[in-house]
């Protein structure tokens, strides 16, 4: 089921390549440079990239009110809302096609299997992968853990190095800490410039040691919105024989991503941040690498033959999908991919980027508010307000019906680096518009008045 109204093609501009970082703002120091401005400013989105009003009608939850006010949902980096098409796909699957997949010979089981594998084909095509290389997990964290356990324990030894960035979500940090503790390997970190971009010179020095087995980096930071130069990281890592895993949980929902052209070895992302249901994540793995890897979890479906003495493994991708998968959720993710493609990923990327830029411009006008991260960013804006804790900011915004996140956003070490215990984060998606950014700014003004800052 597709949305009847895609993006207006005439208004869709060609997506500029997200490469490197443009001029950046210093982290945490915009003090005294801005004065508070009230009311809408002259900054506007240049063209209606998406028909947001029409898109919003596809999302039943956006009709809700919170505390008597229309819901302004700005926590999309945590999870996205789901369009009717996805909810219908779940309902249709469980109402008409539910059976366990792969083993049944009866019609219903074949139907369920066909729906499951058709969704895999959609997801694979969406990221430019083959179906053999597209593994369903329960979330992005499990996808990364799959690599850390199955590939890591086979390939990483004492003295080897896994290189990460300081931007990582705990899900792309903790699995490597566990692996390092077990194997005696070391973790190293690509330097972070003051503007929140990566210092690839440090990566080169680490790679030159010849001990780096894997570089694991986020694609878009869930805190700073930094867009990392993935192609460049891959190029440098491969030159020194290291593999690359990209945590694309914040990227795949927002920008076109092609695993082949980026030449990455592993990529993890999750369905629920891209309009799909919770409960299904995806691991892309390069076929030649996956074939050499032992299984992750043992159980049903991942085997070819089992006897009491031992087992042999199923083909890709099922070798890595032990047990009954969350079939309905996978089908729902397939519907989400259909929806995103009907709207158009180029248009979504432009829209999100423009909205992020608009939010930065509006927020910069608030005295005592400091924005973290580079100017060139994904649809994420994290900020701190002098004299107010982020939880108080978020609680007061909640009283205006505005949902944002407060805390360390599962990136506690990064916040220590930034020198703040917590930040408030607004994150946007295709159904948000500049009016909601204006409401955020207004809500912040109210909150700051209550706190007298």
């Amino acid at each position, binding site marked *: 089921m597709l949305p009847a109204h895609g993006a207006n093609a005439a208004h869709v501009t060609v997506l500029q390549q997200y490469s490197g970082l443009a001029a950046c703002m210093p982290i945490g120091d915009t003090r005294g440079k801005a004065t508070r401005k009230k009311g809408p400013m002259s900054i506007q989105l240049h063209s209606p990239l998406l028909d947001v009003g029409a898109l919003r009608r596809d999302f039943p939850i956006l009709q809700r009110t919170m505390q008597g006010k229309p819901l302004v949902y700005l926590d999309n980096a945590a999870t996205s809302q789901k369009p009717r098409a996805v909810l219908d796909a779940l309902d249709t699957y469980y109402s008409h096609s539910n059976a366990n997949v792969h083993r049944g010979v009866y019609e219903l089981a074949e139907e369920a299997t066909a729906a499951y594998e058709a969704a895999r084909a959609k997801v694979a095509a969406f990221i430019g992968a083959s179906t053999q290389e597209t593994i369903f997990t329960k979330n992005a964290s499990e996808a990364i853990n799959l690599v850390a356990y199955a590939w890591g324990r086979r390939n990483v030894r004492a003295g080897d190095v896994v290189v990460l960035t300081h931007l990582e979500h705990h899900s792309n940090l903790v699995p490597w800490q566990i692996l390092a503790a077990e194997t005696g390997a070391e973790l190293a970190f690509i330097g972070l410039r003051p503007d929140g971009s990566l210092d690839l010179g440090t990566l080169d020095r680490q790679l030159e040691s010849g001990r780096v087995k894997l570089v694991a980096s986020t694609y878009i930071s869930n805190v700073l919105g930094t867009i990392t130069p993935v192609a460049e990281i891959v190029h440098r890592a491969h030159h020194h024989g290291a593999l690359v895993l990209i945590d694309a949980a914040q990227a795949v929902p927002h920008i076109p991503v092609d695993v082949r052209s980026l030449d990455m070895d592993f990529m993890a992302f999750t369905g629920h941040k891209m309009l799909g249901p919770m409960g299904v994540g995806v691991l892309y793995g390069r076929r030649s690498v996956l074939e050499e890897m032992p299984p992750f979890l043992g159980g049903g479906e991942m085997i070819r033959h089992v006897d009491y003495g031992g087992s042999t493994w199923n083909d890709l991708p099922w070798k890595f999908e032990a047990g009954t998968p969350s079939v309905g959720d996978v089908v729902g993710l397939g519907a989400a991919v259909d929806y995103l493609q009907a709207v158009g990923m180029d248009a979504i990327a432009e829209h999100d980027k423009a909205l992020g830029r608009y939010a930065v411009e509006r927020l910069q006008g608030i005295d005592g508010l400091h924005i973290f991260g580079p100017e060139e960013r994904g649809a994420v804006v994290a900020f701190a307000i002098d004299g107010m*804790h*982020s*939880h*108080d900011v978020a*609680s*007061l915004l909640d*009283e205006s019906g505005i949902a944002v996140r*407060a*805390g*360390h956003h599962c990136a*506690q070490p990064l*916040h220590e680096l930034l020198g703040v*215990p*917590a930040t408030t984060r607004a994150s946007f998606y295709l159904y948000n518009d500049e009016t909601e950014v204006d409401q955020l700014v207004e809500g912040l003004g109210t909150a700051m008045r*209550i*706190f*007298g800052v």
Partner: protein
Amino acid sequence: MSSLYTEIIQDAYRRPAHRGTIDHPTHSHQDENPLCGDMLRVQLRVENERVVEAKFDGAGCAISQAAAELLLERIQDQPLSVIRRLDKDDVLEELGMPTISPARLKCALLSLGVLRGALRES
């Protein structure tokens, strides 16, 4: 006026009498709010099983800081036997709110947990 940030809370947050440190505390403990990573330390000077001085420090949200202030005000000059019986409802009573969202309850109860830790560690 905000429903969460009442006058009681704003007052306790802005003008805390118990913020600070004690030079030679008989009891001291610190802990972290798992929700946000905020640290809170509580220090006590106890004489004859009675709290004669109580201080807290650390950064935190208005709810956790106000709760710390109000809790320490309540235990001032109280015997340990009474303090040991304080629970969640006492803290909410001090804050003047019979209910609070589960997420913010963690903020409200941080100081109680740290206070209990201080009493255990002595």
